[in-house]
């Protein structure tokens, strides 16, 4: 199947190459073009050119291939006009008001001129797509954006879950969490380029990431906590660590975008109005399953409750017989593992780069905050809202500002609910 597609695109590519190559640019200044209606050449159409002072330069009639060309004496501005009356019946100019064009011909260059044609009846006035960008396509676009928002939201949620878990148990706002995603993705990359299929490399990477998280807590954050380092200090340490890790990755893997060896540039599949890729669907499936599993574990297992207990009051948790250090290490391992998984999935659906984690960090934080700090389900809900807003807001605002949309929503929601969507207010007194 895949090879068939490749063969086909190769054929197409070759075809275009063949068509385009020979007639590119002739010597001497000229105007030329090809008249086509729905891929079919339109012949016998009269086209004339005049200089900017209305002196006639020449005219031409399109040949069997639809091609025409008019040589011009020197560089300058020319007005080219298509005689609409000579168009065959059933063919019309796409833009009625653009039957003549004024354009510049540069020294030594041939200037191409295009008169878009359509079957009569479909023509419309002036520019723009006109009435057929109807409500249907808006709904299609909305569906697509919602879906993509969900996909983005799920990845963010996976990352945010780790932030939320670690924040929840240790109070640390970990600015290095983006790098945990990146590292997870790159571990998989190393395995992958070493010859393991991504399906094997990915789980391995998640395991290694878990180990990395465990080690980080065991040898770095744990000792810091025991030295009674304050939370704000730790937060700033995490900024330092983020910078260090990010540039370490730049040092090792360079600044380029790197793909995994499998599932790159998969062909899209169409589900109703939504286009997606098989890998995108699988990624979403994995994300949903992991999120639900972790959520349930937090809610209902003793370990999950213990993490919340540690988060509330580590001293009291210890007094209750909970091995606080162990819980925190488990949380770090789990948080880093899900972050690593998020990284691998992000790498699969997008691409690997030393900045990839940093690029989603703010969105993850926004998700966590929106949902209510420290609540795992809040992180999930908040992230989905953020993801969907990032995408859907582009219906109204330019895509370059899509992050702004999500951030404004964050601020507005907190204006109404300062504790976040699922957060709880503290009792006073």
């Amino acid at each position, binding site marked *: 199947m895949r090879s068939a597609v490749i063969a086909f695109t190769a054929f197409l590519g070759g075809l275009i190459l063949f068509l385009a190559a020979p007639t590119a640019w002739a010597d001497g200044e000229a105007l030329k073009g090809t008249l086509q209606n729905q891929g079919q050449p339109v012949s016998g159409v009269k086209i004339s050119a005049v200089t900017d002072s209305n002196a006639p330069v020449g005219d031409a009639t399109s040949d069997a291939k639809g091609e025409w060309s008019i040589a011009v004496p020197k560089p300058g501005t020319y007005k080219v006009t298509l005689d609409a009356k000579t168009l065959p019946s059933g063919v019309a100019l796409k833009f009625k008001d653009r039957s003549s064009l004024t354009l510049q011909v540069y020294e030594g260059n041939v200037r191409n001129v295009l008169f878009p044609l359509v079957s009569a009846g479909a023509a419309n006035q002036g520019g723009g797509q006109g009435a057929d960008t109807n409500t249907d396509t808006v709904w299609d676009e909305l569906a697509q954006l919602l879906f993509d928002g969900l996909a983005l939201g799920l990845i963010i949620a996976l990352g945010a879950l780790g932030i939320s878990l670690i924040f929840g148990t240790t109070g640390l706002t970990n600015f290095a969490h983006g790098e945990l995603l990146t590292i997870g993705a790159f571990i998989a990359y190393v395995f992958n380029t070493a010859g393991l299929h991504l399906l094997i490399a990915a789980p391995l990477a998640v395991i290694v990431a878990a180990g990395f998280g465990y080690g980080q807590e065991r040898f770095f954050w744990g000792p810091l906590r025991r030295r009674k380092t304050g939370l704000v200090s730790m937060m700033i340490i995490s900024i330092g660590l983020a910078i260090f890790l990010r540039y370490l990755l730049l040092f090792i893997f360079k600044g380029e975008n790197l*793909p995994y060896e499998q599932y790159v540039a998969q062909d899209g599949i169409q589900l109703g109005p939504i286009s997606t890729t098989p890998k995108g669907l699988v990624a979403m499936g994995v994300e949903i399953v992991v999120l639900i599993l972790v959520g349930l574990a937090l809610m209902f297992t003793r370990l999950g409750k213990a993490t919340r207990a540690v988060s509330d009051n580590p001293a009291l948790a210890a007094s209750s017989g909970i091995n606080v250090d162990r819980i925190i290490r488990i949380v770090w391992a789990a948080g880093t593992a899900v972050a690593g998984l998020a990284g691998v999935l992000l790498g699969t659906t997008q691409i690997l780069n030393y900045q990839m984690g940093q690029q989603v960090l703010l969105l993850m934080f926004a998700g966590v905050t929106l949902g209510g700090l420290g609540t795992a389900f809040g992180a999930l809900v908040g992230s989905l809202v953020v993801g969907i807003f990032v995408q859907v807001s582009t219906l109204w605002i330019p895509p370059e500002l899509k992050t702004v949309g999500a951030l404004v929503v964050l601020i507005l929601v907190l204006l109404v609910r300062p504790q976040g969507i699922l957060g709880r207010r503290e009792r006073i007194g």
Partner: protein
Amino acid sequence: GGEESAAPATSAPASSSAPAAKGDGVLTIGALLPQTGDLAFLGPPEFAGVKLAVQEINAAGGVLGKPVVEIDTDSGDTKTDIASQSVDKLLQQKADTIIGAASSGVSKTVIDKITSAGVVHFSPANTSPEFTTYNDKGLYFRTAPSDVLQGRVLGDLIVQDGSDSVAILNRQDSYGNGLADEVEKSVTSGGGEVVSKTAYDPAAADFSADVAKIKSSNPKAIALIAFNETTKIIPELKKQGLGPDKVKIYFVDGNLADYSSDFPKGTLAGIKGTLPGAASSDDFKKKLLTVDPELRDYSYAPESYDATTLTALAAEAAKDDSGTAIASKLVEVSKGGEKCTDFKACLDLLKAGKDIDYDGVSGPVEFSDAGDPSEATIGIYQYGDDNKYKNITYLKGNVAG
């Protein structure tokens, strides 16, 4: 300039009137190119270009009889303001010419600092049209042509291919916006229609919304004005059914690269693109590889190489290595005279008292009075099945038009 010299510190008194200072006899070239940041991937070829040129110059006996000194610094990206630090350092080390930066944005933050120190600011990669009119005290030069020409050629190419509805997807930065505007102008005046012009945030986590925007405008061709985000955007285009097998896609210099190790075979087949600069010969590439064996990409390596060589030639022509002296001769050595294509040959001509016209690896490099290449070659390329691009044709153009 020249860091090791004990010459009195006279080369860079700051003033807006061109100081008639005399250089210290050692041509010092500062490279201000990206080692970190968004454009870090452009750094290696550019550094390699500078290095190669310096090697060749010194092998030919240096400038004014002394070896050229090269100092490498990081230009970072606009987010970090690292360039400003680097420039301070280069000025301290009495650099006579600063080659960089890659990003037009970064160049803007340091151009005043450099030019008011009487040092030549010579970028191999700035394409923003704004530098043409910038008040640079006559000290800003570049070997990359302003986007006007490339945009014109790309637009014409799209029109030639018969696409009447074109979508432009560009980086939201001075490079992307500038080029997008030029392409739009060219397409509309040629009879086509730009149905959507979407600028995207290069740091965005994903580009599905941006592509969806394009898709909803239902274009026949897409001009993708991007840097290395291309590797993220192409799969997204394919996902949403806008792959090169469905619509015509065009690349520009920012993303015309070898993707053979990035995509499976056939992914890019049929995509066309434009790239300023004459054919960079395999020979040149080989030489670059001796400087940096890990090079994967050669973007702007020729421009960097030419910028360095031109600087050296101008210093020779002026018989002085100070920034202002170099600037005064740069236009002269780039055009109108006996043609030569490498430092050694040009040097010999200069020594023989001839007027020279250096034609570099990036093109004929004829400077306009504003310090822009007034004539440039734009290559038109097409991707094959192997995701590598091959030249279809070259087009010479006059930037001023």
